């Protein structure tokens, strides 16, 4: 077992790469949560009255709800009064061009591998960069505008496209959906907004990069993506945060709306600070993500690579309302040290001949705990609905855990629901076999892991698949001595 112990120790000792802090002047709202907090945020963002009212309704829902108890981990106490709900880099009004953005901020994103100047940017990827509570810059905005595509910060959308925001915000994740979604409705600060007009195929990847910087703040962003009839968009989010001893809360909401024949592909590479090897610090990543295939033949596909956060708790879901609509969920979740992940998906089959596919790959190392929780629900009208679920767990070492909680509810006897699950362990025999062919143990583990997650990484846009592969190998680097 010598090898296995080294695996665990080496994984534990791997440092987090993005743990630096940006020193910049910030406007920070004092900690605390009451109606005035919400009014302050709304006023700061010059919001219309209807949005303030919606926020206040969210706050009321938040106060009525209790923290859930069904999850497969002990939820640490969260003092909502000790969090600051708004932190923004101090600067004059709005940036009109990148030249006006604080160089320190640009440098921060550059350091994270997200250059915001369009000359340096990854070709074919438009980026919205969110720093604590606000969006710093959005690239390629004008170019996209020519096609009628709206890609901007949520705050900007409220000002410039209020009719779209009003129509769709809260339409998929209501303000009272769950306690964290309600909190988000009350205090959300910024996020990304995307609208793809009828029949337009978005020519580049749209991407938002979330960065938490300030201490004792939470990040509560809201993303709203609307793909009008026959349109297509591929969207990607990435995230990091500094290393701190205190836990920080990230309670985001993502809503996707795909109208008839539209397709939305949503990918996440999540690398929030996971806490140290003893489980101190790290981000609580409690996110509500849901999409609706509103029209016939619509398709929504979630792909997530979750390597960070102290606790990852989310179930990106699809409501399959339109006939023949398709929902997909591809996930890789890595937990090591004391990390916890309780993640999976929900597929609600409402329309006829709707199809869903779930591929979940959990990797647990150290003392990490990884749970897959999924719900496949088939309604009475969902004739010929089909679901396929494959749920695999890979264990490294013998102090970690993998758990599977599949729920199936079918009210239609023409539906087909399949569930397959496997649990495997990277065995010393496998590593020795590769050693005996000249491959050292570290590469052997990487080879096995890459083989294991390939099906999911293949779903990511090319550039990000490479990034995700790198991230995985860094995360599990030094896995064997």
């Amino acid at each position, binding site marked *: 077992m010598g090898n296995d112990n080294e695996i665990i120790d080496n994984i534990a000792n791997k440092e987090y790469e993005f743990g630096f802090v940006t020193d910049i002047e910030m406007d920070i709202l004092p900690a605390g949560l009451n109606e005035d907090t919400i009014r302050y945020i709304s006023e700061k963002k010059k919001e219309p009255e209807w949005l303030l009212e919606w926020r206040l309704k969210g706050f009321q829902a938040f106060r009525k709800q209790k923290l859930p108890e069904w999850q497969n981990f002990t939820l640490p106490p969260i003092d909502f009064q000790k969090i600051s709900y708004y932190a923004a880099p101090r600067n004059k009004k709005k940036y009109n061009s990148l030249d006006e953005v604080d160089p320190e901020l640009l440098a921060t994103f550059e350091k994270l591998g997200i250059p915001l100047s369009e000359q340096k940017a990854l070709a074919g990827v438009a980026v919205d960069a969110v720093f604590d509570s606000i969006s710093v810059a959005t690239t390629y905005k004008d170019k996209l505008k020519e096609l009628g595509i709206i890609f901007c910060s949520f705050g900007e959308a409220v000002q410039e496209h209020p009719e779209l925001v009003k129509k769709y915000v809260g339409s998929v994740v209501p303000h009272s959906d769950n306690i964290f979604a309600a909190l988000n409705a009350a205090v959300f600060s910024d996020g990304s907004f995307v609208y793809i007009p009828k029949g337009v195929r978005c020519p580049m990847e749209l991407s938002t990069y979330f960065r938490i910087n300030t201490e004792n703040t939470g990040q509560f962003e809201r993303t709203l993506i609307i793909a009008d009839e026959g349109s297509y968009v591929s969207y990607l989010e990435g995230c990091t945060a500094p290393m701190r001893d205190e836990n920080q809360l990230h309670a985001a909401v993502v809503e996707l709306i795909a109208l008839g024949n539209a397709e939305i592909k949503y990918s996440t590479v999540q690398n929030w600070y996971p806490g140290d090897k003893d489980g101190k610090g790290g981000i609580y990543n409690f996110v509500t993500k849901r999409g609706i295939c509103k029209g016939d033949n619509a398709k929504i596909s979630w792909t997530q690579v979750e390597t960070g956060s102290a606790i990852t708790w989310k179930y990106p879901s699809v409501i399959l309302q339109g006939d023949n609509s398709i929902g997909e969920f591809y996930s890789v979740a890595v937990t090591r040290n004391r990390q916890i992940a309780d993640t999976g998906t929900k597929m609600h089959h409402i329309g006829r001949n709707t199809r869903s596919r779930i591929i979940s790959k959990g990797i647990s190392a150290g003392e990490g705990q990884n749970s897959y929780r999924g719900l496949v629900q088939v309604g009475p009208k969902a004739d010929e609905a089909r679901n396929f679920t494959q749920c695999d767990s890979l264990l490294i070492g013998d102090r970690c855990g993998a758990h599977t909680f599949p729920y199936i509810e079918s009210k239609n006897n023409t539906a087909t629901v399949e569930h397959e699950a496997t649990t495997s362990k990277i065995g*010393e025999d496998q590593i*020795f076999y*590769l*050693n005996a062919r*000249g*491959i050292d143990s570290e*590469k052997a583990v990487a080879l096995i892991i890459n083989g294991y997650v390939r099906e999911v990484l293949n779903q990511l846009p090319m550039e990000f698949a490479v990034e995700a592969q790198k991230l995985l190998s860094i995360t599990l680097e030094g896995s064997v001595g």
Partner: protein
Amino acid sequence: MLIIKNLHAEVEEKQILKGINLQVNKGEVHAIMGPNGSGKSSLASVLAGRETFHVTQGEVKFHDKDLLDMSPEDRAREGLFLAFQYPIEIPGVSNVNFLKTALAEIRGYRGLPPLDAKEFLRLSREKQKLVEFDAQLVNRSLNEGFSGGEKKRNEIFQLAMLEPSLSILDETDSGLDIDALRIVSQGVNKLRSKDNAFIIITHYQRLLEYIVPDFVHVLYNGRIVRSGTKELALELEEKGYDWLKEEAREKAETI
């Protein structure tokens, strides 16, 4: 090429090799035979560097270097190849990707750049043909769902690809039907040259009808109790191992 002197090893505190002496030169094929539990496969594992085996005494020189001092991967890079008795399945890792990685590692160790895609493909096709290995298996996950025979043939295919100087075949014939045995043996015979060497571990004489050894050694109770030429194998086939066991026991008593 390989010199084993007074090699003692144990596994879980049980002595399994009790003083092995063996010299293998380039161009030679040595067969190691013996009854079950005599230490044949243990010798293969010790040479390949399996962690659960502990060498307690003796030395092994491979190309004049201390083999026992090297990690398993360095032994492979130095040109040692073990064809496993029970090749393991590794789901998700494609055979071809695995071989590419292995070949690149071994070449890198020798200061050579990895083969480009075209060269690799050509080499792979050539070797598939040589050892009659099904092209479809090359693209599948490593040994996953392979039959016993296919796994053994994959070992020989890897051997052909990696071109080791010393190959140890650990009971490669076990579980093979006669056709598979023929294909595996023909593969080995084609790969034999004046520059490489083979150690063939087998329980039965059958394999040695196809791969004719230069030397035959009988391992019993952790020691080589008799060495000879291919005729020794025939004698064993005829008389079984009992007379050697008896002889070894008497010898032990007189000492």
